[in-house]
């Protein structure tokens, strides 16, 4: 599996994401600079990392979504390529029009960094197939603008098409208000594209992908990718 991580000025989880991809696939993830016009040949996965691309100025992800490389990323996605956006990467994918909805300032108005419980809402995706019947996982969040906002129609569509990948839940797996760290509609933490080949999520699977750091639930996401491609 050949993967690439897009690097914008201000990205700061690019290395972390590359480490996790490299670990899961056994092949060094390539770093691609935002000013490049094209992606490397033969890519299976493009990952857009967390951080503060362009300082998060104007709107999170807005300036990055218009960087030269993004045209190629959009084409890659249109051809059915796998695209993962984590945290700031999720914001970039939304601004680029690859995923629906909006991410707004956390309801608390504060930046929040801590572990959350996530329910894996579907295993029918190249990103979540390896979770099997493990429904509640622990993954950290670290963001200021992570409130996923969608109108009723979009929410209904996401639910109807089984495109909600993760929800914030309590330890028993219930999507209650107390488990919602940022005010996201329907406790949504991650969504899939209609073809299920693009995933955007606020939590950082790459940060708990190593037992030495206290947990490896995030690693399963990268294993899923590896599985999906081995099968394909």
């Amino acid at each position, binding site marked *: 599996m050949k993967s690439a991580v897009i690097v914008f000025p201000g990205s700061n989880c690019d290395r972390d994401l590359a480490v996790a991809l490299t670990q899961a696939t056994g092949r060094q993830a390539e770093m691609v600079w935002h000013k490049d016009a094209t992606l490397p040949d033969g890519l299976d996965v493009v990952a857009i990392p967390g951080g503060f691309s362009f300082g998060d100025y*104007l*709107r999170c992800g*807005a300036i990055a979504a*218009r960087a030269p490389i993004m045209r190629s990323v959009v084409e890659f996605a249109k051809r059915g390529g796998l695209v993962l956006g984590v945290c700031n990467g999720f914001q970039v994918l939304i601004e680029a029009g690859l995923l629906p909805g909006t991410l707004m*300032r956390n*309801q608390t108005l504060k930046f929040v960094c801590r572990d959350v419980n996530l329910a894996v809402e579907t295993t029918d995706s190249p990103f979540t197939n390896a979770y099997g019947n493990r429904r509640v996982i622990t993954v950290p969040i670290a963001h200021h603008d992570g409130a996923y*906002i969608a109108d009723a129609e979009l929410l209904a569509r996401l639910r109807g098409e089984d495109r909600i990948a993760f929800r914030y839940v309590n330890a028993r797996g219930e999507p209650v208000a107390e488990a919602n760290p940022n005010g996201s509609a329907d406790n949504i933490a991650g969504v899939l594209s209609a073809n299920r080949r693009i995933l955007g999520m606020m939590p950082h699977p790459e940060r708990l992908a190593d037992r030495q750091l206290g947990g490896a639930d995030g690693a399963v996401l990268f294993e899923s990718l590896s599985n999906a491609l081995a099968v394909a």
Partner: protein
Amino acid sequence: MKARVFITLKNGVLDPQGEAIRHALGTLGFAGVAGVRQGKVIDLDLAETDPVKAKAAAAAMCDKLLANTIIENYSVEIL
């Protein structure tokens, strides 16, 4: 030529910051604040000297970058 761009949330779009400000104003003793909405104002210093063209350019910038037209409205004033 200076242009001022206003970017505001569309009606019906939730505004957590506006809500927080309204709440904080209440706590500070300001009564009678029924609603608060926060938006952006972007002041552009443009080389263009024709106001009509400047306005069109600023609007194009809004469409392409400055505003998220899914949830935001914008308006341009030439100063």
